[in-house]
């Protein structure tokens, strides 16, 4: 845990340094002059980094990407690319590669013509275009598909072509707007690794927009979690999961047990929270207020354990609960319990040898450490 925090600080320190590649400074955006879609967006992206903007739909993440690409102008604030403000630069002069949600492959051109387009507008020689197109097709393993039309390709192949087209003119920065949204699950996972591989081998900077947290966790160096036009937390995937800074991030990233209550005591790195159902829980204060304020306790289901005397010292919080439902998921078991008045208390236990088989209706004692229980904003 401490290690994680250290790394986070390290990343933050690096971002502050001068090799900042993309920089959003206090960017605001409003479409109608009444409501702000993006409220004070700040982001520093280092060269070669893979940063994901993650958030529910309508949270302003795509708008940020569109402002970066030049299709929308910021209402306020500045966007810097390599230290130069680009607010007034038209999209075609920015030299940013972009992969669109539905690929936007030109349907009247063949795959090779699609790839040649960005090179032709840059007036490259015919031989060079041919060479680069071939190389880009090889990179996405579609060497034999140059003569086909986009409509003759499968979704996954179209996706690869879109990726190759965004990279063929060797941009320093590539933007991706939910590029895997239209693919089925298996293909999506395959493409995640593919994009990751290409990112690693080319060393380009990538800004990726998605609403899929698994995708974000798999691919990113850092993730900016968006909600309601504001970045809730910007951190590495493990920090986001292990140490969410507020209730939104905790519930949006991964599964999360929520317990509502009031802070009754704060002492150093621990605090006591009296739940609405009456029990008192020891927790780590993260974003809660002083004594007397409301708080949401966040607890990952896999950090909850069935009480076991050998681990008594670790499990500072112990409560009796009732099993309501058991779902068998192969590699793990998901048990829904009633604990501290919460009917949706989830317990995840790995399907290890000799795990105790719980039955609905059965009483059970569960416990967790105060370190895993984070007191966040109400």
């Amino acid at each position: 845990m401490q290690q994680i925090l250290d790394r986070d600080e390290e990343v933050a320190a690096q971002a502050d340094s001068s090799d900042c590649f993309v920089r959003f400074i206090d960017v605001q955006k409003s479409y109608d002059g009444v409501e702000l879609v993006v409220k004070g967006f700040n982001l520093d992206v280092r060269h070669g980094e893979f940063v994901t903007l993650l958030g529910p739909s309508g949270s302003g993440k795509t708008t940020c990407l569109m402002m970066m690409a030049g299709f929308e102008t910021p209402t306020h604030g500045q966007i810097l690319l390599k230290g130069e403000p680009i607010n007034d630069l038209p999209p075609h002069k920015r030299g940013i590669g972009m992969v669109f949600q539905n690929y936007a492959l030109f349907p009247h051109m063949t795959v090779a013509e699609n790839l040649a387009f960005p090179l032709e507008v840059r007036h490259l020689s015919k031989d060079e275009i041919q060479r680069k197109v071939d190389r880009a097709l090889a990179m996405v393993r579609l060497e034999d598909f140059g003569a086909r039309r986009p409509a003759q390709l499968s979704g996954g192949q179209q996706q690869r072509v879109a990726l190759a087209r965004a990279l063929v003119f060797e941009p320093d920065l590539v933007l991706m707007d939910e590029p895997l949204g239209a693919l089925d699950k298996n293909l999506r996972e395959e493409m995640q690794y593919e994009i990751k591989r290409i990112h690693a081998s080319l060393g380009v900077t990538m800004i990726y927009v998605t609403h899929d947290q698994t995708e974000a966790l798999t691919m990113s160096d850092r993730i900016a979690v968006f909600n309601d036009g504001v970045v809730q937390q910007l951190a590495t995937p493990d920090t986001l999961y292990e140490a969410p800074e507020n209730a939104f991030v905790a519930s949006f990233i991964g599964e999360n047990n929520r317990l509502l209550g009031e802070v009754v005591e704060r002492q150093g790195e621990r605090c006591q929270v009296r739940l609405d159902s009456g029990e008192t829980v020891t927790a780590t204060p993260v974003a809660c207020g002083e004594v007397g304020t409301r708080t949401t306790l966040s607890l990952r289901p896999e950090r909850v354990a069935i009480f076991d005397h050998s681990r008594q010292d670790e499990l500072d919080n112990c409560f009796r609960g009732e099993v309501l439902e058991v779902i068998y998921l192969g590699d793990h078991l998901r048990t829904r319990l009633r604990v501290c008045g919460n009917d949706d208390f989830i317990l995840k236990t790995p399907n290890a040898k000799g795990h105790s088989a719980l039955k609905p209706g059965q009483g059970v004692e569960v416990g967790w450490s105060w370190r895993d229980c984070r007191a966040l904003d109400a």
Partner: protein
Amino acid sequence: MSESPAAPLRTADGVPLKVSLRRAVRRSKIKALLLVAPLLTFLIIAFVMPLFEMLWRSVDNPEVSTHLSRTVAALEGWNGESLPDETTFAALAEDLREGQQARNLGLLSSRLNYEKSGMRSTISRTARRIGTLEPPYREALIEVNDTWGELDTWKLIQRETSPYTMSYYLAAIDRQLSPDGEIITVPEHMQIHATLFWRTLWMSAVITGLTLLLGYPVAFLLASLPARHSNLLMILVLLPFWTSLLVRTTTWIAILQSQGVLNDVMVALGIIADEARWQMIHNKMGTIIAMTHILLPFMILPLYSVMKTIPPSYMRAARSLGGKPFLSFRRVYFPLTIPGIAAGGILVFILSIGYYITPALVGGQSGRFITNYIAYHMQTSLNWGLAAAIASILLFVVIICYLVFNRLIGVDKVKLG
């Protein structure tokens, strides 16, 4: 598995699957047919039958063989090198006598007059005096009217014996058959149709080009504006449809005529002198302006329906890949709108080559279309055969346009609305 692969599939009770399927869908097929039956009947009566009637009339040639049946029989085997013999003249006199009694020589004389001017008066003059004529008829008829003594007259009668004729089509393109059966151009002062065909075609092309030029940006705006603005714009585009065609055309007269609104304004502003007012109506310009306006929606709508299907991300992709705005438009957006351009173009072109009322009202002498001559031949000259031939040629041009379009673009790629 043991069944040979060629054996037809059978249902559980042994009926071949195809038969069973046909039986199952027969009911719904009959129902579907009954639903379209009223329209089908209407179309057959009001469209298909008149169409074939028109095509038939353009080649039908019954007059000579009906009204000069005896003469036709007597002319059989005539070598055409000298005047026919007395029997033939006697047959002609008998035919004319009978025709005069039945008072049905009008059609015959008109028909022959199309081919050889003066034939109408020749026949009517001869028919009036037919009762007083005595044999030998050869001398008697030539004495009444020396046209009967011309070899060409007899060649004409012999030629028009045929129940079908090409002469209406030839007349429609300013050609005629010489007495010797060769196709020759009519004298220059009588040439009218070919000029009108060309004028109709090139003016239609100009009108199509203008509607494209004016309609393309509007359709683009319609397709790219947010719904609440584009709805208003769409109403403005469709507004002309809610006004009578006649009203719209006469409005142009009020605006464009030499004492009209536009000239008055320009005179008032001192742009033109009062005595040098522009002649913008009752000529080609009037026809082009009014028809461009009237046909504009027919260009905008197909363009719009195609543009609507082009996602904005294509242009964005082109821009982000480094294409300057115009280049991106030319390389990416424009090629995708070609089916719309073709659909709108062919629609406007076909509509305008068949347009009648607007050129008739604002075209004057120089802005008139071939359709105005179809109407003239239908209503005034009563030469229905020629009207049918001109109309058939127009139909033929339309079919050619359609086939070319289908070959190049494909009709199935076009959605209207």
